[in-house]
């Protein structure tokens, strides 16, 4: 009954509501302007801050994007600068190495060329021409002996002499050609040496050319970054995203390795720090200690990589003088070796503990009779494998520093882009909500007018009647004046 107190017509909701509505209508009409103002104010009060917030978020996103861009370009500039520096160092080393031997190479080349020239000149010396007495011999040959014995003897003597001389000349001629052939034959090693030397020069020059081309490409990239072009920014962003994905994958693999490492040393650690102490409800102290050791190993690995200047996460280490850096490298390496040794020992201990536990459970399950001992080889292989793993995993973990550096640097870009996206989405949602509230208030204003449509119609009719009467009065006035 209590919820029917408003019913003017008991047990008739519709009629009661209608009567109440009719009664309320004049009041609603009277309050029309106020209610309209109220709705508009509400729209302003709620929608205004929302739109303002959206505008602020968009501005923040713009600022962040600009800042991200600046950081990205600065990082890219630094990276490309380092790349160019390294290429120049490589070129410098190449030039120093190759040009250092260049005077010797040049001397060798000149000597070889001179020798070849001399030999060539020697080859050019033709054998002596046939002597002038050939004509005399021809003339004597024309002499007719006609059976004169003396003449014949002279001619025979001449013939013998000529044949002897001819033989000598021919032999001389052959010797001369043989000598020239020998000289020419001697050319071959010089030619080969020359060819080889020129080949070396060509190879070195090509290498130099390739490096120069690389430098050109890097310089082009550097200029693009300096000009802050969209192309450079896009290329750097894509590169950062790729780096992020790759380093994340490698880090996940490393986490897998760390978990294996953890499994190897967690149980033996309970032998050292006790298995009954808990840091939290589920986290044992022995587990925490094992994790700390793994983190320490990773940290030592990080220091090794830093001191070797493979990574550059700590400027302090990078800026250390050579002596201090070397000292730190050795300290980190010694720590790493100690940890690796400890882990190998713990892995052995783990195997022994696991075997002991297994034996106990077996004896509890089967009673006093003993099970046959396993094959010693079957026991030795896993034990050795565990020890080897325990020793080498810390060193493998040391290399995590490289993907970690990539991950951290690329995270700045990827995280920045993600944050900008989130802020933009938030801004968009606020703007939509702001517009929605304002439109809703307009709809409410219209809806209010729809509710009080009857008084509004009456108002319109009254206004129309009044304006009609006024018009008539205005029209009748000149007539009266005229009259």
């Amino acid at each position, binding site marked *: 009954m209590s919820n029917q107190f408003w019913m003017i017509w008991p047990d008739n909701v519709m009629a009661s509501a209608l009567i109440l509505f009719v009664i309320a209508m004049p009041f609603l009409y009277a309050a029309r302007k106020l209610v309209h103002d109220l709705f508009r104010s509400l729209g302003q009060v709620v929608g205004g801050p929302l739109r303002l917030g959206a505008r602020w978020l968009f501005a923040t996103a713009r600022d962040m994007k600009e800042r991200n861009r600046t950081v990205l370009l600065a990082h890219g500039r630094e990276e490309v600068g380092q790349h160019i520096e390294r290429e120049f160092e490589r070129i410098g080393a190449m030039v120093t190495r190759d040009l250092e031997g260049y005077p010797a190479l040049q001397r060798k080349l000149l000597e070889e060329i001179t020798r070849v020239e001399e030999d060539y000149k020697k080859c050019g010396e033709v054998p002596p021409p046939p002597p002038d007495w050939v004509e005399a011999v021809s003339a004597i040959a024309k002499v007719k002996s006609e059976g004169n014995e003396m003449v014949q003897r002279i001619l025979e003597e001449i013939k013998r002499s000529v044949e002897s001389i001819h033989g000598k000349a021919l032999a001389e001629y052959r010797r001369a050609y043989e000598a020239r052939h020998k000289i020419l034959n001697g050319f071959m090693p010089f030619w080969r040496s020359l060819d080889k030397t020129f080949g070396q020069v060509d190879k070195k020059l090509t290498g130099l050319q390739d490096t120069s081309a690389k430098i050109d490409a890097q310089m082009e990239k550097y200029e693009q970054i300096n000009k802050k072009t969209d192309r450079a920014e896009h290329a750097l962003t894509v590169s950062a995203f790729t780096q992020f994905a790759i380093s994340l994958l490698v880090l996940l693999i490393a986490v897998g390795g760390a978990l294996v490492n953890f499994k190897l040393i967690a*149980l033996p650690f309970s032998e050292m720090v006790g*298995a*009954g102490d*808990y*840091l939290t409800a589920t986290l044992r102290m022995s587990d925490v200690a094992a994790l700390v050791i793994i983190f320490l190993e990773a940290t030592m690995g990080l220091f090794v990589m830093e001191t070797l200047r493979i990574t550059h996460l700590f400027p302090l280490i990078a800026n*250390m003088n050579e002596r201090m850096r070397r000292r730190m490298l050795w300290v980190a390496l010694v720590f790493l070796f100690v940890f690796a040794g400890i882990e190998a020992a713990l892995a052995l201990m783990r195997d022994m503990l696991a075997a*002991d*536990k297994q034996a*106990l459970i077996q004896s509890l*399950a089967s009673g006093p009779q003993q099970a046959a001992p396993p094959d010693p080889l079957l026991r030795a292989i896993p034990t050795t494998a565990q020890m080897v793993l325990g020793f080498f995993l810390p060193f493998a973990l040391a290399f995590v520093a490289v993907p970690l550096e990539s991950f951290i640097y690329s995270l700045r870009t990827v995280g920045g882009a993600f944050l900008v996206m989130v802020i933009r989405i938030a801004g968009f949602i606020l703007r939509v909500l702001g517009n929605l509230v304002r439109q809703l208030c307009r709809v409410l204003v219209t809806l209010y007018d729809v509710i009080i449509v009857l008084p509004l119609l009456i108002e319109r009719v009254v206004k129309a009647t009044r304006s009609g009467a006024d018009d008539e009065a205005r029209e009748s006035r000149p007539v009266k004046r005229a009259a």
Partner: protein
Amino acid sequence: MNRGANMAKRLLLATLLGLSLSSCTDPRSHTQAVYMLIDTSGTYAQEVDKAQKIINYLLGTLQSGDSLAVARVRTRSFSEKDIIAKVTFDNRPSQANAQKRAFRDKIDAFVKSVSGSAYTDITGGLIQGGMFLKETGAGRKTILIFSDMQEELDKVTVRDFPIDLKDIRVVALNVVKLKTDNVDPRRYIGRLEAWQKRVEQAGASEWILINDIEHLDRMLQG
């Protein structure tokens, strides 16, 4: 050189921080203590082999830092003399394994020499168990009663007073049916209900009945 020294200082500080972190442990006890009562009265003494299996199972399940005690239920059981073996396992797993082996040997010896008693004082055993468990300070405390839950007291033994089993879980194991239960099952049900009521009134956190021993695994891990 100064920077190097600063670096070394920072490393030292980080190590000290790590060490200080390792010293703040969770003060709550995460161990569990189990007190097992074995009924050796009358014909139930024949069931002791089953009890041995349960003890072996407990030895395989309990971890370093946990406590285990096994006591017999006799004519009067409120006595330390009725505790056959008790142990709190060492924090080092290797030592804990050695303790488990020694415990098993004690139980083996008990099983071989067990003899039946005239009366069954379960209440006395419960009081003794409750006191033992409180002393251990374990996080989870459990009393396992390996009995048919038929209490029989001599005329002079007084046990009809409220007992204290606050925060202790009581598990009745292998509650076999007696011949009279077979005649009228209401006796069996009524006996169990009476024990549940008494245990709950004593402030026990839980009353569990396990007749299939395989279900014990789930209960101990839960």
